[in-house]
């Protein structure tokens, strides 16, 4: 299972087994539920803002190791960011997942690089990020 080592790295499995910021947030400014219609996986992303900064972010739902690990990494990545910075992070991550941008070295996100080789799994990796972006868009309209 050598190729699998590239996909299921220690970092991914660590986030999968011990997800960061898993749970719910009451009175969140963002609460966005998203379903991956291809596989039935679902994610709910919560975020609370303090002014323009993400004060807290959590995720819930169920899914494969890739979708859960990626959601976990996202929460770490977006904590403390401004809305604009968060939007930039999401665009940047999506660009990485379609090979248009380099993954940052020495960062947990780099562990998701292997997913690019499996086009059917890219949606798993981007699910929570897409939910967060949708949440941002809805929030800005309100």
């Amino acid at each position, binding site marked *: *299972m050598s190729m699998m080592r590239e996909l299921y790295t220690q970092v991914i499995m660590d986030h999968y087994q011990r997800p960061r910021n898993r749970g719910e947030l009451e009175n969140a400014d963002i609460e966005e539920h998203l379903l991956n219609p291809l*596989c039935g996986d679902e994610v709910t992303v919560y975020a609370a803002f303090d002014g323009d900064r993400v004060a807290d972010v959590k995720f819930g739902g169920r899914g494969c190791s890739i979708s859960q690990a990626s959601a976990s990494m996202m929460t770490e990545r977006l904590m403390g960011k401004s809305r604009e910075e968060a939007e930039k992070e999401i665009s940047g991550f999506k660009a990485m997942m379609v090979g248009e941008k380099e993954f940052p070295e020495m960062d947990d996100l780099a562990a998701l690089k292997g997913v690019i080789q499996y086009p059917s799994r890219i949606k798993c990796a981007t699910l929570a990020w897409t939910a967060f972006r949708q949440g941002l868009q809805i929030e800005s309209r309100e």
Partner: protein
Amino acid sequence: MYDVEEIRHDFPILEREVNGKPLVYLDNAATSQNPRQVIQTLTDYYERHNANVHRGVHRLAEEATVAYEDSRERVARFLGAPDSRGLIFTRGTTESINLVAHAWGRKNLREGDEVVLTEAEHHSNLVPWQLAARETGARLRFMPILDDGTLDMEEAERLIGPRTKLVSVIHASNVLGTINPVERLAELGRRAGALMLVDGAQSGPHLPVDIKALGCDFFACSGHKMLGPTGVGVLWGKPELLEQMDPFLGGGEMIREVHLDHSTWNDLPYKFEAGTMNIAQAIGLGAAVDYLDELGMENIREHEKQLGAYAYRRLSKIENLVLYGPDEDRTGLVSFSLPDVHPHDLSQLMDEEGIAIRSGHHCCQPLMRRLGVAATARASFYLYNTEEEVDALVEALVRAREFFGAFVR
């Protein structure tokens, strides 16, 4: 009984390797592989006979028409249809059911009428009825499934009543492997004055089907799940019903006389075959049913029954593995899940070993909810699969669990 090792040579794709391992193809409920005989029929058609059917008077058009109509006869005979006039070529099961929902449902359903389905329908036998119900005001009722994956017949008898206009049921479940008692349901429907549609997507390829014996009014199945090409399927309907129905699609071939303000319809089955059909594919389906006939559907059923039971037995010995569906009287497919390993991850790890299985909701989201899971993994067998392939699956599953388990400290 046929020799599995020998017939495997008929399927060129089975010689393929994936990730340096021999392909173990266990996703037959999604689509089956094509024997050389079907591929050759398609090639011959394109190299020698390609023409539009029922139109030209030149040689190629005659040959194509004869081959196309000959295929219709063979498919009708294969399914035990009493009459090939009611045998309509479609794009597949989904289109077949949509045809009935449109051409029969929208014309005949009224507010207060009921269409009775099961909780385990594929989306293709659910969504078309949701659309028809929304337009007509008819109501959908669902026969529940019991915890062992079989249909709750007591509830079925209660639900099928005077308001029922149609009972539409999946013959063999693509998730649970359950074979539903469609003959009995057709009888209950008949007594209530309702019609019966059988979704045969998973039975046509795997069970000896005799439409006459089923006693149904409509039967739908897909060519690509029964060794045929993609893009062709079948709807059989009772000719007297089809005649009363409005056309599904309008255009060439389905008409008799066209004026600027109105038209009249062609005879059956052409009334429902508008435009240029998937001619090569329909002819290829004829070659596929010939192949199945030659092996014998009883033999194929027996082979898959044994293989399915073998897989069920071996999988049930894997610690903590959950199997779905009844433990007997099932088709040759098994749905399962392993705690701690998501089905997606599981099928990725199987792919690494050259094993093709399916993971996900299998187009049965309501059934997944009933089972309380988001997704399952599924291995589905066909006439060319072997016990060695089941062994390969089981061994790979054990390794996958060890791989994931290694991360749990």
